[in-house]
Every structure is written in C-alpha cells, then in structure tokens.
C-alpha cells in the first residue's frame, strides 16, 4: 500500500464510524422515551453525519479517483466498510443505545483529542471541530449511564445487561494494524492501543458512580479493519443505499 492508499483507508475508518453510528441514531427519530431526548439524539446524529461528510469527502480527494462523499457512502458493499463492529450493532433498548454511545464517545474523544494535533492539517482541523461536539456527546451518554445504572432496579439491570452485551466489541477499538502503524509513524494518526488506560479510567469512573459492574465476558470479536462485519451492516446498507441503487442515473 502506498502512503496515499493508507491515508485513504485511515480516513474511511474514521468517516465510516461516524456515519454508521449517525445512521443508527436516525432510527430513533420520533421514538425516544422523552421528547427532549428525541432532540438530543438527533443533535448527536447530526454531529456524526456532519463528521462523516467531512471525512469521506477528504477520503475521496486523497484517493483521487473522483469519488465524493456520496459515492463512498452509497456505492460500497459491506466488505468495503471500515466502521467498528460496535457501531453497527442494533439500537436495542435505550440502555443499549446509551451503552454503545458511551463506549464510543469516550473512545472517540481520546482519539480526536490526539488527532487534533495531527500533522495532516485537514485531519487536525476536522478533529478539533468535532472534539467540541464529542465533549457534549460524552457528557450526555455518561449522564445517562449513571442515571440508568443508579436509577431503579429495572433500569440498573437493563443497563448492566447492555454493557455486558457490548463489552466484547470494545477490544477492537484499540487494535493496531499496519495502516495504523504507518499513520502513527507519519505523525498523522493515533496510537489507539495507547489510549486504552485512559479509556479504562474514564469508563471505570462512570461505572463506579453508576453502581454498575465492569463487565467480565470471555469473548471478543474483531475484523472491521479488514471488512469483516456482522450481518447487521448489510441491512443498514440495504436501507441507506436503496435510492441510489434503484435509480443509478438520478441526481438528488
């Protein structure tokens, strides 16, 4: 892989993360447990879709084959996607959506904090802008994990179950492969493996306040960096890409 190809790959990972999670949050629209929360979830979704547009546009430019954000979003099949497995998992109940969000928010905060001093100015700019949004996302999801964890017996149980169900998707966030290594070497990317202690500290603090147990599960899955996804992604794409595929000649 050339440096350019690796940067393209790296940007796809970042952009796909934001887009797939934003798409999942869009499913909540009109169905949130509190009207105020409907607005909060769409705000977060909007931030994520905004991030993905900047990142995928840049990815397209780096690739130099004339693919723009929409070409990349609507004309790639499952195995060409690079989003974390965690983010394509179904919304489940509100506790599960918040658990997924919380795990990712804490991760994305650390990742973008580091990226905001990337040698690639474009990446640094996007990261700095997004970091403000993510700071709020993290506050929102942490608040909910605490409220649900330390709320009623029922909510505590649901929150704990959600954490347990998603815990096996956590290790993948901190994986490093050749692309990651190369990006770190170039001063563009982040050594995500090094973020794990900080992530653990933040997550542990919130879980402690929420009276929740840090999950102890024996399984973990990975593969998204190589395009190996769960079955859920195919359905997300089938829905998201439908119009572009049904009417390939149309402009929207």
């Amino acid at each position: 892989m050339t440096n350019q190809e690796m940067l393209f790959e790296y940007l796809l990972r970042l952009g796909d993360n934001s887009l797939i999670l934003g798409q999942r949050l869009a499913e909540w629209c009109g169905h949130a447990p509190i009207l105020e929360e409907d607005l909060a979830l769409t705000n977060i979704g909007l931030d994520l879709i905004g991030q993905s547009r900047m990142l995928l546009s840049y990815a397209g430019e780096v690739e130099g084959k004339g693919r723009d954000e929409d070409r990349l979003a609507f004309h790639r099949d499952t195995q060409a996607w690079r989003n974390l497995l965690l983010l394509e998992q179904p919304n489940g109940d509100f506790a599960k959506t918040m658990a997924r969000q919380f795990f990712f928010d804490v991760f994305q905060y650390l990742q973008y904090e580091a990226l905001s001093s990337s040698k690639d100015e474009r990446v640094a700019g996007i990261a700095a802008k997004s970091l403000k949004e993510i700071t709020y996302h993290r506050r929102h999801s942490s608040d909910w994990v605490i409220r649900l964890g330390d709320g009623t017996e029922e909510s505590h149980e649901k929150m704990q179950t959600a954490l347990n169900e998603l815990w096996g998707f956590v290790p993948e966030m901190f994986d490093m492969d050749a692309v990651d290594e190369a990006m770190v070497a170039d001063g563009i990317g982040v050594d995500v493996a090094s973020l794990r202690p900080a992530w653990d500290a933040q997550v542990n603090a919130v879980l402690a306040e929420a009276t929740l147990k840090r999950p102890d599960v024996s399984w973990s899955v990975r593969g998204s960096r190589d395009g190996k996804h769960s079955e859920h992604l195919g359905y997300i794409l089938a829905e998201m890409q439908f119009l572009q595929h049904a009417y390939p000649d149309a402009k929207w």
Partner: protein
Amino acid sequence: MDVAKTDFNDLEEAFQAKIDAEKRIEPKEWMPDKYRQTLIRQMSQHAHSEVVGMLPEGNWLTRAPTLKRKAILMAKIQDEGGHGLYLYSATETLGISRDEMFDQLHTGKAKYSTIFNYPTLTWADIGAIGWLVDGAAIVNQIALCRCSYGPYARAMIRICKEESFHQRQGYEIMMTMAQGTKEQREMAQDALNRWWWPTLMMFGPNDTNSANSAQSMKWKIKRQSNDELRQKFIDATVPQAEYLKLRIPDDKLVWNEERGHYDFGDIDWNEFKNVVSGNGLCNRERLKARVDAHDGGKWVRDAALAYAAKKAARKAEAA
C-alpha cells in the same frame, strides 16, 4: 338578581374589551373557561401534529439519497420535535400537564393533523411535505403569531422563524426531481397528486361549516378564516407548481381576474371525514408509534426520577 352572575359578566366584558384593544392575555389572568378549553384543544392538537409529523418524514431519514439531504432532513425533523415541545410548553401554562395531553392523544380524545395519516411512499413525498404541508402550516402559523394568548403567539413567532427553511428545502427537493430523470419527474408529479387535496383540507372545513370559528375569531385566537387562509395558500402555490412544470390535480383550477384569486374545485370532505375517523392508511401505526415511545420509555423516565431523588437525598444528608 344573581350577584355572582353579574360579576362574571363584568369579568367577561372586561376580558373581551382587552382582546378588542389588541392586548395579549397572559397565563395567570382571568379568562373565560371556554377560552381556556378552546386554546387547550387547539394548541395541544397543534403540538401533537408536530410530534406525530416527525414519523412520516422519519420514515425516509434512514433512506435519504445523499448525506446532505440526510443531514437537512434530520435537522428539519428535529425542529418539528422542538416545535412540538414549544407548543406543549405553551399549553402547560393553561394548567394542563404534558402527560395529560399525551394521555388524550393516546386514548384518541385529542386529535392531530389528519395529513400525517397518509403514507410517505417515495422520496418525492419528502419534497411534497416540505413544499405543501409545511407551506400550508406556515400560512396558518403566520396568522397565529398575532393570537390573543401571549404564550401561543410567542411560540408561533419562534416556530415561524425556524420553519422558513422547511418549505424551501422541500421545494428544492421537488425542483431537483422535476428537473431530473423521467422517473424522478413522475415521482414528483405523483407526490403532488397525492398530497395536494389533503393539504387543502389542513385548513379545516369551509367557513360556513366551521362550528368554532366565529367565537375563535371574536377571541382573536384565530385571526383569519379557514377559507381565507386556504385561498392564500392556493394563490401562492399555483405559480410555484407552474415553475416546476408540474400539474396541480384540479381541473377547475383557474385564475379569476375579477376576484384576483384562483378558483378551485370542491374538496372531498367525505374523504377527510373518512381519514379522520380512522380509515387512513397510517392512523394506527402513527398512534401506536407514539404510545410505544411513551409507554416503552416509562422505565427510562422512572429511572431518571429515581436517580434525581437519590442524588437530592445524598446532598441533603451531606449538608
């Protein structure tokens, strides 16, 4: 002579004098019970319509054809949730809780705009809703900015300010499709065909058949009649359709030089009644979605309350 009754008449006269003098009524002031009830009915129905209105558009959010369109639609639907919230908040100043209003909606006691019982079948429907449904809503809402009840008028001003982009984004979708491929043009025309008449029905029955209108006009809850507003909408919309080279599905639609307005065909009020009374395609889904969101979210709200209580108790203990 009934003393209490005289007092009441004095109060009511003073109230009407205030309204006639274009003064706004504020929450804690005396108002006739019927004025309060009329407002609660109208404002909560308006709030419910915003919130139920999120659903037909939300139906396309995950399928929006470009990322830009997805972001715009998401922002628009979010606004609608916000507008519902402003309106619930304004209605609560009249002494009814949001939960009571939800309860009325969920048990069918309160209505929402019938238009949202129609399905969104193609992406062009998202354009048509923005252009026509939001267009009609804006005509209605501009008139309500001068409503005699202060909190309602203020909510409307805020809503009108935010909503101006909604109609424009809808029209832009229609424009793109009307200038697009043959299939897109057909989709755009089909959407106009399906949404035109239900949109005209949004203004309510003809003035001659509108039971509550006269009193509402006197109280300045309404500032213009249903027929006036409907005419205003049609006059504004016909040239917009012409620009798109789309045909409004009404053979009787013709400019009347003498009146300075468009003449138009009769509205099929039987269709309206039929959908209102439950025979629309989506009545059950829409209501079920709202009930499920609310009932299904109870454990979340309970948890938030329980946590707040625990936190307050801990704070008190520490003090």
